[in-house]
């Protein structure tokens, strides 16, 4: 058999995590470099996957399949379609930046403390999360997916609870309590979702007799396996609930602002740009493929919820006083768009949604990381504590502005493409919802520009005076992201080419066709 590329892609960071954790306490820097190198190597592997993947080939490629638990027909099955490839590439791409951005986030507070281990732990945990996320993107066996979908929570819990943002107005103690609250909240929300999903997974096994996504989907497609409508709906809800919590969809969103607010900027990026994507990705891969009828049945409700998320998230973002919370609510709004696109059941909508996952990952990373640099300089998360930064640190302000413009999906930057696709896709089937969602772009402009105006423009605040501009390391983090934003905004074809076939497949699973235009215009 050929070289297990997918396994390698997931295992490499895991091994790297162990190695990083094993680095002796005194050699912090070595641990950092090790983690960075491992993440880059993973990126290389992901690139290989990207190259080896043939968009026009079979649906699932680079597949691996080994018997695992024979009694329950659990198989260790991996395989990637276009969507998964895109998500893996995104993950592998973002992690090095996350590591580089968090270079000093886990350093000991008092310098020269010899027995300080958390630094190693921080980077090890990040790599661990990467490994789990990647394998959950690859798994085509529901059981395997579930295991890693849940296991992800453990390292995330420690990352949120253990390495919180040191910038806190009420001092370190208060910060610690807030952190643990946020971490526990994150854990509980996702655990509840996970447990409900577990029930659904078991139910699926009872109905289908095995866990293999491909087999079940196939059986569903050619009618050899027919579920009772009610059963299918319950199972669908079980799965969807977990994904909606992870995504997060209104009203299951309240864990995200706390988590992002309390954790360091890189971890916040990890949450919203990488981990949450598993939820939306799983909606595409599992909900739609396993339960087509139920998906169509639930579509109206889900669309409404997504719509609420869009508007609600944006409005709350406008109302925030804390930079990170603002970004968090903006993300909620964006996740609304993604889910909207997925369940609009049009090729534009779903391609747009997939593209949106990638672009949102990059844009949020850019914005959040720059915000993190800003916060680390001033030591406060409150918007009111800033002002006139643009005069002191123009580069920082410029990058921040570009990140913001990406967030409000300005044409020419990547998010615009995906957002417009989602809107068109939705509008084609549900005009009213499409129009209401379009209003979201005004709100997006509002909260982004208000944030920029309050922090960057105006007279220079005393505390901001002498704030250093971006350092080389930080530029190295931000510049590639911005370049990527512009490139994907101008030439998204590479991604769409990979994604489109997979989306076509998914649509055929749910027996949906794109609505045809009324007038067949002569092209």
């Amino acid at each position, binding site marked *: 058999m050929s070289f297990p590329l997918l396994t390698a892609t997931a295992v490499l960071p895991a091994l790297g995590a162990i190695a990083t954790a094993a680095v002796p306490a005194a050699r912090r820097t070595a641990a950092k470099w090790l983690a960075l190198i491992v993440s880059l190597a993973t990126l290389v592997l992901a690139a290989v996957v990207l190259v080896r993947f043939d968009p026009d080939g079979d649906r699932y490629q680079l597949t691996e399949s080994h018997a695992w638990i024979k009694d329950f027909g659990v198989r260790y099955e991996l395989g990637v379609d276009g969507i998964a490839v895109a998500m893996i590439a995104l993950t592998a791409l973002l992690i090095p930046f996350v590591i580089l951005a968090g270079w000093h986030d886990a350093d000991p507070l008092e310098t020269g403390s010899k027995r300080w281990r958390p630094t190693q732990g921080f980077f090890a945990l990040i790599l661990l999360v990467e490994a789990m996320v990647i394998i959950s993107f690859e798994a085509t066996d529901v059981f395997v997916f579930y295991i890693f979908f849940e296991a992800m929570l453990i390292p995330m819990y420690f990352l949120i609870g253990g390495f919180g943002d040191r910038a806190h107005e009420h001092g370190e103690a208060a910060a610690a309590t807030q952190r643990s609250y946020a971490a526990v909240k994150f854990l509980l929300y996702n655990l509840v979702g996970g447990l409900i999903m577990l029930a659904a997974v078991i139910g699926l096994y009872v109905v289908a007799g095995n866990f293999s996504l491909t087999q079940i989907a196939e059986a569903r497609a050619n009618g050899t396996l027919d579920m009772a409508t009610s059963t299918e709906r319950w199972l669908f809800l079980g799965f969807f609930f977990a994904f909606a919590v992870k995504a997060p969809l209104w009203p299951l969103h*309240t864990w995200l602002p706390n988590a992002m607010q309390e954790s360091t900027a890189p971890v916040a990026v990890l949450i919203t740009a990488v981990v949450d994507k598993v939820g939306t990705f799983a909606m595409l891969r599992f909900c739609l493929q396993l339960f087509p009828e139920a998906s169509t049945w639930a579509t109206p409700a889900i669309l409404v919820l997504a719509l609420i998320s869009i508007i609600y998230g944006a409005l709350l973002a406008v109302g925030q006083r804390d930079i990170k919370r603002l970004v968090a609510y903006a993300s909620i709004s964006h996740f609304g768009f993604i889910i909207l696109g997925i369940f609009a059941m049009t090729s534009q909508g779903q*391609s747009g949604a997939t593209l949106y996952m990638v672009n949102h990952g990059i844009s949020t990373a850019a914005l959040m990381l720059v915000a993190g640099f800003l916060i680390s300089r001033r030591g406060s998360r409150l918007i009111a504590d800033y002002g006139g930064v643009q005069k002191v640190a123009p580069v920082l302000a410029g990058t921040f502005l570009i990140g913001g413009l990406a967030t409000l999906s300005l044409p020419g930057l990547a998010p615009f493409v995906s957002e417009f696709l989602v809107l068109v896709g939705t509008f084609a089937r549900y*005009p009213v919802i499409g129009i209401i969602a379009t209003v979201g772009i005004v709100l997006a402009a*509002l909260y982004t520009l208000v944030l920029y105006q309050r922090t960057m423009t105006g007279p220079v605040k005393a505390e901001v005076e002498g704030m250093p501009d971006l350092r080389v390391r930080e530029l190295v983090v931000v510049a590639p992201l911005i370049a990527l934003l512009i490139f994907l905004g101008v030439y998204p074809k590479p991604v*769409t080419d990979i994604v*489109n076939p997979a989306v076509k497949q998914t649509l055929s699973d749910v027996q949906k066709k794109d609505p045809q235009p009324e*007038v067949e215009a*002569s092209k």
Partner: protein
Amino acid sequence: MENLIALLIAAPLLGAAVLLCGGRRLDAVGHWIGTVLAAASFVVGVVLFADMLGKDPENRAMHQFLFSWIPVGGFQADVAFQLDQLSMTFVLLITGVGSLIHVYSIGYMEHDERRRRFFGYLNLFLAAMLLLVLADNYLLLYVGWEGVGLASYLLIGFWQHKPSAATAAKKAFLVNRVGDVGLSIAIMLMFTTFGTFAFGPVLEATGEATEGKLTAIGLMLLLAACGKSAQVPLQSWLGDAMEGPTPVSALIHAATMVTAGVYLIVRSADIFNAAPDAQLVTTVVGAVTLLFGAIVGCAKDDIKKALAGSTMSQIGYMVLAAGLGPIGYVFAIMHLVTHGFFKAGLFLGAGSVMHGMNDEVDMRKYGGLRTYMPITFITFGLGYLAIIGFPGLSGFFSKDKIIEAAFAKGGTEGWILGGVALLGAAITAFYMTRVMLMTFFGEERWRNQPTASPAEPDVEPAAEHHGAAASDHVAAATGEPHPHESPRVMTIPMIVLAVGSVFAGGFFSIGDRFIHWLEPVTGHAHGHPPIGAAAVTASTVAVMVLGVGLAWLQYGRRPVPVVAPRGSLLTRAARRDLYQDDFNHVVLVRGGEHLTRSLVYVDHTLVDGVVNGTAAGMGGLSGRLRRIQNGYARSYAVSMFGGAAILIAATLLMRAV
């Protein structure tokens, strides 16, 4: 030849990239790079123009396909350019006026430490604007559309340390965003209706679509146009946009960007032709705006704001014309071009005056400046004559044609629209004369009174940003101004524009050159006003003279008070933009604030509270339950025993049933 089209955009884009990423080492030469690249783009435009003239009118349109942009299923967006007569007109206007204003800015921004970035933004604007007019499909146009929005945002807020500037920039972008919603919805409608949104296919297929759909599309496009071209009800941002440096006001908020709406409507001519209701709404919007702008322009004492009002009203003319259909399109564009010349000239003049006066913008503190800055006076004067439609100057030709067309619409509508247009002409004459008189004639009201420009509350030295103004005024920034003529680098562009504003109209109209030029694209129908064309022209001139006379009576004969009198109700309303901003503030801003606050509260207490409540409930319940564990072996034994009993009962029951 086609391949040159991309070059049009590439040149300024390159400039923007270089200047914005170049860093401080480019500060010395940055402005030259920007100007040269803008000029290069103009040259390319001219070359293409020459080439275009070489072909026969029917197939002058050129296409250039670069690459497929967003291909998803039936949704095919390409990056492709279309250069026809209409686009060409804009290209020449944008690059031409743009280059001139680059030159002007070299002088105007001389002492601004961030001049390099200023030019970078200007180039960015040029690129976006060219993309807007060269795109061959609506989505790519949308990109340019928002691009110019971004550029205008950056340039309005260029002096970001001024909160007023930052706010104005944000406001401009937001209001434009509202318009953009219209545009994107229009695109979606096109996609669902025609399956495409490229100009060619859509405009060909209009015949097959239902009128309702077309009306919807038209109205959405109109909304977009309102946002970009500052038409009622989305006009509120233009006045504040004057916070930006004057060259910006001249280029973006007078000559080019604000006219994009007109371009959009004319470009979508076929859609509007097929949707009369949309056309009617368009004409109404235009008419209302041209009155609105004119009235506002009469009351403003800030010279730039007054000019902004006039811009608004002039664009109102264009929109009105565009709404008239085939009889109006050409004239809309023609007025657009001439207006581009004279309004740019006027703004540049205003800028020249301002920095001769320590950035004083209050006309009541001007007066009698014609002797101090003769060139400015002359160029400004020519522009003035042009805009009020003085016979023989370009404004006369274009505006008169529009008024004719308005009458030619026929029926009561025709009379109403024509009447409004005439009235507008009169008011235009009035407020422009007012500006002219208050600025260049009368006694020198700036004598012995310090002018600390209201435009900058902060104590930054003027050298920070106000270019030539500062050169000899840093010391006297707070003292009595010393009016003086601007350096040549600034006056030359003004002269060129003045020439344009004098002759352009005539050049276009003689032998209907312009009509023949645009007809293949927009189509043209000769409109016949019920009262012959001559009568209309005569009345236009008459009302013009009337307006001038009134202004002379009020501002020429008596001295102008330095402090603005309270004024009539209408005046006060006009000073506050007819309370439109206050309305927005009270309804939208306040309402929005309350909404968001309450939502934040709801999110914290309700959505989050439910979850935390369940958690607390669980805790309480378990707290109660653990009381049962009293630790006495005997009580445990009781439960065991009871359990055993229950088991026996169960087995017995099982046996029984």
